[in-house]
């Protein structure tokens, strides 16, 4: 037996070797390093130096699982994760051993495969940059993270924002947040903030209002409030604005916590959904409470695709295209494409319906009218009054078709209630009864007068709206013939529950987008296809990373932490975008009434980026002091607003401080004062969800596949935590989650989120929390087996709730520009500006309508950085019908110019003559026409960076899209209800360049 003494003796000798080793330059004695990560998952091993790491793609938003091969910390190959339902049909059972799983590869698309080039883009920003010339001039100084932190927190000096302007000083975050506190603390013994606001909103005269407030209160209010005369606007901390381009679950909750809950600004997130498909979300939400439901593609017999080109740009593209292809091959599915452009999806359709852009609701409401007139709706389903009635009828969903709505008086738009119970007319009677008193109600008992108030059913309101136009008028508005409407309506209603409509952004990024969304959703409701195989389904959803479910041990969602987060800062007030704010509860309304200066969006939330940008531009409703952006490229991506955005962001009075988290100098971040280089998605974390197209429960987890590529890069989360500590923000640091539960870095945040996913309910094997975590990480997430998709003739994960035919919320909300109530059902209205002037009238001298579209090869604003993809699809064009081209004397390949009322200089591009686009319409795909993003050199200190001018290839049609001149021309045409920025309503003229 060796004694301890001998060991110790030997230690002296061996130490002399160790000392020798340390002086050896190669340090060959260190065979292991400690990467300092707490994450040591149970991964598969395939070679001595090749690692396999699971993560989730983010070339687009589909959230496909990926499997990466890593050699010496270099990403060498990306495959699909075969456990992930986006990539295989069926995907591997979750219990499959990771070693066995190596024998299978999921599929990912060209964009996903090219993701390596996002990681290894040579033009990435490699260290923090501070602007040293005017904004957007491309002149930078390389600085340390510490310097950036000092200046962002404490304020500093910047070069003039425009050429020739003097240097200026700006307020740091600590100054912006200086007076944050609760109103109660500010006004001890005085009025509460609610009382102040209610006093204001009932006192029109300023001096009368002022005279009811004490000097002490007023002094506190001047410190604390943006405008004491408009207290509802909120605290000065709202003057920090965060804007998010591509947000991801996990990341956006993190930034919401940081900016909203901890810093205390109401202007958190402001993400890009409004330039994506917002009215689609809002439409679904108003009618179902969920932001989107999708058709069960595999079992559907008839699919009516409005705009959605599911074989090239769906979400998730691969899974959607695969399911459709399979359903066609198995002889089940036929589908119709409603789209002004003959897309690749239209090529395989039974019919292409080249509709006039913006006419989708005319077609849909025409179908609604025909379906109602011909009694082709599912009457029994619609007559069911509630859950029990539905259940007796073998239905898991029901509608409010029979609910009585007041159509006059003070409560116009509200359901008729007696003793808080919604009233209906019992089936086969004239008796008005509680909705839950009978199983069936009358769909259209005519106008009913109850207690002197005129009422109609929800169904009748829909019918009335459908009857506002004749089928001939609808056909004319949609640019179709009546037969098409009838044929589609007849086909749609001849497959029982196995038919559905599908749409995303195409029909809703119009000024009439929300009503269109309602009409398209309602077609499904009329045939009662909810939860049925082949009908509309809610999808498998996901396990909950934010700690909202039983069994979740951690609480990343700060709203759940009132107990452990006592110093939580409440953000309150009116967003710059006026999202979620009622105009009628503002001082402006009190003084001016209708119309508001600019539209307000009471039904919306955190995702109204372009209106936020308009708010910054107009300093409406108030001026701001600093803007932070994350992965955002708004001057490139927002229709019509490049000029407004760039004017605003070169004005240091409107934007004193502009900080960008980005991976590259993008079009928007090129105007920043500080660019803070973030990791790409292959270096990041997140907990992305998937679309309801996936019927099984799915929680992919994105974990870093390689270490951060350059030593000068930091993850945004890590840096925001540094700033939080410097500002002493609550909710971060050693006790960030709870006493002794730290939130000191990104992995603290995400690993806890992933533990929540692993621990929710049964199903993840493992004795300990770590073992379960490893099990999830070793498979790239948590996935329910494919066999769990259906149960009998319905889907397993049911929506199980009510679909509204009529949205009371919408029907009782007023348009801030007209003071009129909105309509609560689907409806066709013409394309118009905010003051309801039809665009066709104003812009009649511009004969063409401009649309955009997507391809399978490119996505968003980012793929120009992927040479693989540019090789496959090297440029974009102005697609024009050959008949139109003939009239204009334009040949294929000619350089032509599209000019609009907003942009008289126009933009130039190559003409592409096609039969496959409706005459009178021109189409330009997105993704091209960059002017930064590596296309231009930057000067960093004395050095000029390399760049690739080829990245500027093609055109960006956003630059000719129409601004809404009826409200000052500082924002693009917009859906006043759903908030969608209009991409398809601009009329243009074509000239040969």
């Amino acid at each position: 037996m060796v004694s301890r003494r001998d060991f110790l003796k030997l230690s002296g000798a061996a130490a002399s070797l160790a000392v020798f080793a340390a002086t050896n330059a190669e340090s060959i004695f260190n065979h292991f390093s400690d990467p300092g990560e707490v994450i040591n998952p149970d991964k598969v091993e395939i070679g001595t130096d090749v690692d396999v790491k699971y993560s989730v793609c983010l070339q687009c938003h589909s959230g496909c699982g990926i499997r990466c091969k890593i050699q010496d910390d270099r990403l060498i190959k990306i495959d699909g994760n075969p456990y992930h339902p986006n990539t295989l049909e069926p995907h591997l059972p979750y219990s499959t051993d990771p070693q066995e799983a190596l024998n299978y590869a999921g599929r990912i698309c060209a964009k996903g495969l090219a993701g390596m080039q996002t990681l290894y883009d040579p033009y990435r920003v490699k260290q923090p940059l501070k602007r040293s010339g005017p904004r957007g001039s491309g002149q930078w100084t390389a600085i340390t993270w510490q310097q950036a932190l000092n200046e962002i927190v404490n304020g500093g000096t910047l070069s003039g924002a425009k050429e020739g302007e003097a240097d200026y000083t700006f307020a740091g975050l600590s100054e912006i947040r200086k007076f944050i506190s609760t109103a109660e603390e500010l006004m001890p013994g005085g009025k509460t903030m609610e009382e102040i606001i209610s006093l204001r909103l009932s006192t029109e005269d300023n001096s009368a209002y002022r005279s009811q407030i004490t000097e002490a209160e007023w002094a506190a209010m001047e410190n604390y409030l943006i405008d004491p005369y408009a207290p509802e606007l909120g605290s000065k901390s709202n003057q920090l604005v965060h804007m998010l381009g591509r947000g991801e679950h996990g990341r956006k909750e993190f930034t919401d916590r940081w900016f909203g809950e901890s810093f205390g600004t109401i202007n958190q997130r402001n993400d890009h959904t409004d330039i994506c498909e917002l009215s689609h979300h809002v439409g679904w939400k108003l009618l179902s409470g969920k932001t989107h439901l999708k058709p069960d593609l595999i079992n559907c017999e008839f699919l009516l695709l409005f705009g959605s080109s599911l074989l090239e740009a769906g979400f998730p593209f691969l899974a959607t295209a695969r399911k459709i292809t399979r359903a066609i091959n198995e002889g089940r599915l036929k589908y119709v494409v409603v789209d002004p452009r003959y897309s690749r999806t239209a090529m395989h359709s039974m019919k292409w319906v080249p509709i006039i852009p913006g006419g989708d609701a005319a077609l849909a409401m025409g179908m609604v009218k025909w379906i109602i007139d011909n009694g082709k709706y599912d009457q029994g389903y619609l007559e069911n009054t509630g859950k029990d009635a539905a259940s007796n009828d073998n239905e898991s969903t029901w509608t409010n078709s029979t609910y009585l709505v007041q159509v006059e008086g003070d409560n116009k738009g509200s359901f008729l209630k007696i003793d808080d119970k919604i009233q209906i007319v019992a089936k086969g009677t004239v008796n008005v009864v509680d909705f839950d008193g009978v199983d069936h109600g009358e769909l259209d008992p005519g106008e009913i007068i109850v207690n002197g108030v005129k009422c109609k059913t929800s169904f009748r309101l829909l019918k009335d709206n459908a009857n506002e136009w004749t089928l001939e008028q609808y056909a004319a508005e949609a640019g179709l013939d009546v037969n098409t409407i009838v044929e589609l309506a007849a086909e749609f209603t001849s497959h029982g529950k196995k038919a559905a409509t599908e749409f995303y952004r195409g029909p809703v990024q119009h000024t009439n987008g929300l009503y269109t969304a309602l009409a398209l959703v309602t077609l499904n409701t009329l045939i009662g296809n909810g939860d049925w195989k082949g009908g509309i389904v809610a999808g498998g959803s996901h396990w909950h990373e934010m700690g909202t479910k039983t069994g979740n041990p951690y609480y990343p969602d700060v709203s759940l932490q009132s107990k452990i987060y006592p110093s939580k800062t409440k953000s309150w007030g009116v967003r710059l975008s006026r999202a979620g704010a009622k105009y009628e509860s503002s001082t402006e309304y009190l003084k001016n009434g209708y119309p508001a200066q600019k539209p307000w969006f009471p039904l919306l939330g955190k995702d109204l980026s372009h209106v936020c940008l308009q708010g910054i531009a107009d300093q409406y409703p108030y001026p701001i002091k600093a803007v932070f952006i994350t992965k955002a490229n708004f001057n490139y991506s927002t229709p019509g607003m490049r000029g407004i955005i760039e004017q605003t962001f070169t004005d240091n009075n409107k934007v004193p401080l502009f900080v960008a988290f980005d991976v590259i100098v993008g079009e928007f971040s090129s105007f920043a004062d500080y660019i803070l280089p973030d990791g790409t998605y292959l270096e990041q974390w997140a907990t992305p969800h998937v679309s309801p197209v996936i019927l099984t429960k799915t929680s992919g987890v994105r974990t870093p596949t390689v270490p951060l590529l350059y030593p000068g890069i930091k993850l945004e989360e890590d840096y925001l935590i540094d700033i939080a500590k410097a500002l002493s923000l609550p909710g971060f640091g050693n006790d960030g989650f709870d006493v002794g539960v730290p939130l000191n870095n990104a992995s603290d945040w995400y690993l806890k989120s992933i533990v929540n996913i692993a621990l929710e309910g049964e199903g993840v094997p493992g004795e300990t929390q770590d073992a379960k975590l490893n099990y999830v990480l070793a498979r790239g997430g948590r996935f329910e087996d494919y066999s769990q998709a259906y149960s009998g003739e319905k889907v397993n994960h049911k929506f199980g709730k009510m679909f509204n035919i009529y949205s009371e919320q919408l029907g009782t909300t007023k348009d801030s520009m007209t003071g009129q109530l909105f309509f609560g059902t689907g409806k066709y209205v013409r394309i118009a500006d905010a003051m309801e002037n039809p665009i066709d009238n104003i812009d009649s001298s511009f004969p063409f309508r401009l649309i955009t579209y997507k391809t399978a090869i490119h996505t968003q604003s980012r793929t120009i950085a992927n040479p693989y993809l540019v090789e496959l699809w090297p440029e974009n064009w102005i697609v024009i019908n050959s008949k139109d081209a003939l009239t204009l004397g334009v040949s294929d390949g000619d350089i032509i110019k599209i000019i609009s009322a907003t942009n008289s200089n126009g933009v130039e591009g190559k003409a592409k003559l096609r039969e496959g686009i409706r005459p009178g319409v021109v189409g330009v795909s997105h993704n091209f026409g960059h002017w930064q993003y590596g296309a231009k050199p930057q000067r960093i200190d004395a050095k000029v960076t390399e760049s690739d001018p080829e990245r500027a290839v093609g055109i960006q049609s956003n630059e000719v899209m129409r601004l809404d001149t009826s409200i000052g021309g500082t924002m693009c045409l917009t859906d006043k209800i759903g908030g969608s920025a209009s991409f398809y309503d601009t009329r243009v003229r074509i000239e040969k360049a």
Partner: protein
Amino acid sequence: MGIQSTINNFETFKELAEARGNIYSLLSQFFLQEPSKEIINAIRGSGFLKHFSNFLEALGKVNLFKEYLFNNLKRDEEFQRLKQEYMNLFKVPGPKYVKPYESVYRDGQFGHGKAQGFVMGKSTIEVKKFYRQAGAKISNNHKDLPDHFGLELAFMQFLVKKELDAWKHENKKCAVKYLDLQNSFLTIHLTQWSDDFCLELSKLTNNDFYRGLAEITRRYISKDKSEVEQILKEVKSV
């Protein structure tokens, strides 16, 4: 023996970890690299052999090895011969090649004339997983397989180093975690094949250095395993 007086500040555990780490470091070098002039010079240097001699005494009869270190290694031509022997044993798949990988010894039925395991077998994967789970990343300098005998010794050094760091921060919980890891790595990996491997090494070489190395390594690993168990028992009882 004699640890009670210092038990509260973990001083003894710290010293033990330091010593054990150095031994694993030394042993792993002998397997991972051809003998270099520098190492040999360091061995020849003051104090080392004397201490080492005590160590060898404690391990048992390895006189030829000692003799070799004290006498033969002083000759330069012997140094060249030693380097050649290293290449023959560990690098060149010739008649002396000892195939220093766990999967060769464990994933087949070991023995002459019987099937041996392939490289990159199940054990290799298990070893690599173990490294990862312990938070150890194989350095890019290591171009050989993960279940190389020398690398497994180096991994023990890594774990002991982490244990030592924990003692330095007076973090008993963490130290126990790494002691547990050492214990299980010794149990489920190293001791499962160190005897077979070292005996095979002894058979294939006539060189007293490598015969001696095989013997002391084999014995040391087995002693260290009981040592770790003992330490764990003591730590947990504190």
